[in-house]
């Protein structure tokens, strides 16, 4: 476990002044102010209605739902493989993790075991997605505090990874790369070299990014001691992921309930101390380092494994190869039946979760044995994390809200589904 939180200042937080310099009480009134939903600091579409005493927040009411796109209702009208495209848009910063989470749940429902090569590729892509999501979180969070340079730097790194994902799946942001039972395509030649080059660049440039803010007085003053949340409160609000680990609770699904062979990878879980904004931002730097370790190990394991199939060898699940579709009547019929009727999982209900960059991303699926799911429910990590925001901002200053919401990494696509 790594905890490298340095430069902790023990200064007391600012106290609101109710008296002027001569000691006379100031006549003040509370201000009701509406922030958002269209606002530069509200990541996406979040609205706050605040009661302010000067700059201090007495109480705040958040309002969400401005990006509600009826993911759950739409999925009930889709076939199982078609839902993958909708899952991309949930947490759009790391779309690969949503794809993998959903496919993992359906595969467990159907009792499918994916091939070893597919497992390693999914782990590798999830960790790459974790890296790029944390890069954006750090970049936009520090941008909200006023540090614009980091935003350009982290976005350039993200562009490099976009190039890899685009070569792999055809899209930069919303991939729909996984399929139930495997993946859409295998890796391309030269993938390993390109990933290693990108990681080398991330490693070098992240030192610069951290160097700009690590000892910066403004950054430290604006994040240390700001809106802390204790471990007990965090658990009571259902926190998972980096925000929970920043509060000192060492819980990570990749270690607590390992899946996809995570117990064979050598990596640590960074844990914070106080649970304030500083911890939540710095823990993401550490998580990027750990994810890079996992990616390097995954590349090595892929090389040792050698080439192989990425899809399950099951005609009821995997599309046949194109030369069979165009060359034989069985292949054509198989392709036709899968596209028109898709697969029919057994009736039942299942909940399965993965450790996404934001926390525990779970899918609860109820199947009635038909070609469409009866109920699809996405357990969005930032919904639970954001429900603690009213308590966290009480007593903080207005400018702290901006830093806090950024550090909680609230993504409206996932929050509102």
């Amino acid at each position, binding site marked *: 476990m790594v905890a490298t939180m340095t430069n902790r200042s023990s200064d007391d937080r600012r106290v609101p002044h109710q008296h002027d310099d001569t000691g006379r009480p100031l006549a003040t009134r509370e201000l009701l102010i509406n922030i958002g939903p269209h606002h530069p600091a509200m990541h996406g579409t979040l609205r706050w209605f605040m009661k302010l005493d000067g700059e201090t927040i007495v109480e705040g009411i958040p309002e969400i739902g401005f990006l509600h*796109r009826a993911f759950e209702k739409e999925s009930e009208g889709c076939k199982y493989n078609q839902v993958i495209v909708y899952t991309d848009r949930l947490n759009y910063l790391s779309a690969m993790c949503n794809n993998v989470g959903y496919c993992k749940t359906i595969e467990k429902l159907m009792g499918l075991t994916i091939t070893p090569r597919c497992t390693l590729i999914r782990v590798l892509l999830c960790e790459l997605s974790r890296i790029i999501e944390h890069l954006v979180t750090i970049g936009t969070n520090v941008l909200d505090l006023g540090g614009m340079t980091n935003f350009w730097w982290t976005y350039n790194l993200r562009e490099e990874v976009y190039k890899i994902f685009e070569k792999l799946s055809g899209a930069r942001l919303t991939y729909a790369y996984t399929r139930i039972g495997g993946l859409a395509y295998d890796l391309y030649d030269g993938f390993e070299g390109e990933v290693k080059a990108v990681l080398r660049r991330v490693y070098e440039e992240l030192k610069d990014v951290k160097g700009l803010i690590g000892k910066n007085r403004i950054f430290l003053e604006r994040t240390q001691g700001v809106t802390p949340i204790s471990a007990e409160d965090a658990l009571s609000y259902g926190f998972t992921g980096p925000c929970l680990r920043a509060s000192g609770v060492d819980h990570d699904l990749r270690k607590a309930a390992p899946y996809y062979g995570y117990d064979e990878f050598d990596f640590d879980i960074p844990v914070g101390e106080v649970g304030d904004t500083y911890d939540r931002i710095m823990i993401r730097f550490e998580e990027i380092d750990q994810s890079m370790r996992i990616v390097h190990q995954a590349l090595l394991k892929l090389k040792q494994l050698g080439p192989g199939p990425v899809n399950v060898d099951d005609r009821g699940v995997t599309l046949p190869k194109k030369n069979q579709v165009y060359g034989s009547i069985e292949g054509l019929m198989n392709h036709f039946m899968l596209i028109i009727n898709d697969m029919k999982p057994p009736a039942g209900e299942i909940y399965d979760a993965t450790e996404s960059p934001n926390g525990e991303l779970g899918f609860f699926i109820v199947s009635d044995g038909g070609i469409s799911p009866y109920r699809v429910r996405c357990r969005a990590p930032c919904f639970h994390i954001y429900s603690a925001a009213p308590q966290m901002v009480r007593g903080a200053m207005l400018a702290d809200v901006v830093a806090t919401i950024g550090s909680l990494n609230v993504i409206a696509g996932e929050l509102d589904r």
Partner: protein
Amino acid sequence: MGIEALLPQGFATTLLDRLVNWGRKNSLWPLPFPTACCGIEFMSTVSSHFDLSRFGAEVLRFSPRQSDLLLVMGTISYKMAPVLRRVYEQMPEPKWVIAMGVCASSGGFYRNYATVQGIDQIVPVDVYVPGCPPRPETLMQGLMMLQRKIDGESIHDKRERDVEKMKEGSRRLRIV
């Protein structure tokens, strides 16, 4: 109207048109209205790799009073529709609207109880940029098409759009 009413049609106003349009199209101040995934591609577009500021559209003003190009990026839900309308009405003339992404153009692949099927039911749109999300180059092409459209405008044109002719739903939006 303004000084435009006093100027006669002819060579002088055509030259003035060209000057005014040149100024307007090369210094569009965008008002980003990011809601969903297209917002992330927009952030890529303004980042140093693709760099929207080459087209003069660098100054992102998040205040509608100080901008002239409304960039709607992402899905607009019925809950967000009055906000979009109010922000559009707060912008002073001349103003243009780019609908970025298929969700803003037509609702995208969301056809449900929560998604507006295209922002042209709420605000008049000048350029539709398709894609889910559109590549940064696509957005830039959309911006260049808008610049060509601005080239064809004249200061004699009536600038107020006929918002009353918007589709039925938006008439229920309350304008303050």
